[in-house]
């Protein structure tokens, strides 16, 4: 189980490494994507339960007594809802960032952040 968490934190660190070291804005945006995917993996693994079932209520489970049994066996649904929201936000962010990168290439001719520094001081 802790393998999930270790890999999630590894992805997070790799994302930050990408943001700091790479000299290309598109690679930095990819790093941002890797970073958020690491966070999503971390969040989903939090809600996992060994041998659990998917948290979808079907007809037979709504009888007396069966609901409590279902709640004891199901995986936590809240982190899954949080991750869905976060994936959508992430898609929006990446779309905006990549379109800004296209405009930067049109104006500057390069995507190197060390050369995109006309605004300074």
């Amino acid at each position, binding site marked *: 189980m802790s393998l999930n968490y270790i890999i999630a934190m590894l992805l*997070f660190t790799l994302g*930050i490494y990408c*943001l700091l070291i790479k000299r290309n*804005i598109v690679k*930095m*945006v990819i790093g*941002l994507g890797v*970073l*958020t995917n690491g*966070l999503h993996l*971390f*969040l989903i693994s*939090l809600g996992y339960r060994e041998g659990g079932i998917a948290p979808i209520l079907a007809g037979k489970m709504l009888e007396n007594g069966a609901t409590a049994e279902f709640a004891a066996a199901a995986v936590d649904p*809240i*982190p899954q809802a*949080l991750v869905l*929201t*976060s994936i959508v*936000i992430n898609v*929006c*962010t990446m779309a*905006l*960032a990549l379109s*800004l*990168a296209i*405009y*930067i290439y049109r*104006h*500057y001719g390069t995507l190197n952040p060390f050369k*995109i520094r*006309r*605004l300074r*001081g």
Partner: protein
Amino acid sequence: MIAHAPILAIVVPLFAGFLTPVVSIVAKRFGVERARDWFVMGAAILMLLIVASMAPAVWRGEVLVYKLGGWSPPWGIVLAVDGLNLLVALIIASVVSLIAIYSVVYMERDSGLEKYYTLLMLVTAGCMGVTLTGDVFNLFVFFEIMSISSYALVAFRRNWDSVEAGIKYMIIGSLGTSFILLSITLMYGLVGSLNIADLAGKIEAIKATQPLPMIVPLMLTLFVVGFGIKIAMVPLHAWLPDAYQAAPSAVSALLSGATTTVGVYAMLRVSYMLFGALAIGTMFIILGLVTMVVGGLMALTQRDLKRLLAYSSISQMGYILLGVGFGTAMGIQGGLFHLLNNAIYKVLLFMCAGAIVYRVGTSNLDELGGLGKNMPITATLFIVGALAISGVPPFNGFASKWTIYVAGMEAGQPICTAIAVVMSALTLAYFLKAINSMFLGQQPEHLREVREAPLPMLFPMLVLAVFCVVLGILPSLGMDLVRPAQGAVMNQLGYIGSVMGAG
């Protein structure tokens, strides 16, 4: 109070944002382009009325708790409005209404205006959502809505400087919000709840166990850094001068008035009320002093007017952090009053800068000069704003800065007061340089036919300048506005009781 007021204050700008393209298409079909502008102005003023209707109940001392969908906390999402929320919501609603009136004329030379108004309403909905919510993941989602819409607004004109500033703001801001998401994740894993009041109670219980688990300082740090990027605390302030310089002036005014205010609110709510950590006030004092000094000294050597105003914004944020960090009643009152004043005079100054850019075409101080004869009203309003921000009596900046100075002396830190007073003098210095370069002195040949700014642009500036003078002559009015907020910040148990008790 209007029924369902807290949720309406978020829903009105959100729906107005989504309906604006439709209204724009219909209006163009009938040939009445202005209908879209009137629609947005109407939505902003409606939102201001809804927020104002919540004021009497909250100022009487009760916490308005609105359960979404009828689910009670901690299983459902609640909107909880207490004194602090209401102060920030009033600031945001007023600032956005005035900017909506201002941008009708300022942005008329740009194309694609329906997208601008949509993004403006989305930023407002995001700000309102962060302010009024009582659930920490809801806060994150609305914070992202606000941030992403503001990234798009900064890069709105798609010139070389707008795009460069936009990408820098975007990458630094996204890193900040991913830190906030990591902290929410850790909090959910530790405690199992997402409601702010519920979390406050449970984290108090965890903090009482000795030794403190390492994860609690880590969570608080990630939150402080995430929100600190939005309010431009010092090592995290690098995106702000570029973004304010390159954005259209109405957007700079919106960013400085609304999003930084919301960032300070979120920081206060999470560190003082969720974690109950008044002990980190010392860190706020030190970082506030550094922010004040760095912002002020960098502003002394700027060539561009909007960049100078941006560094001045960073410096004023330092004052707010200093006031809030003292932790005493007077300190927090001073900090929150300065937050209110900062929204008023910063928006005024950016609107004046926008008026000059609209008429002359440049904001470079070396190319302006002698505009005092051509634009007398704009010059007077800019001078009012500059004197207010430097803390010259009888304007409102003096009242809030004096409260912070006295709070420093009473808390036994005269060094903080000394540094704050010196930076106040330097603030006056660089504003006098700006006034001299722009309005006084000899007038170059190519500026002889510059006319005064048009009336719809002058009206919001006049309203803000009147507020500057009124809050300066009657500071007790400002203190009465701020006292419920300060009481709410120090009353963590009351908040927890009201929100959980309503369920």
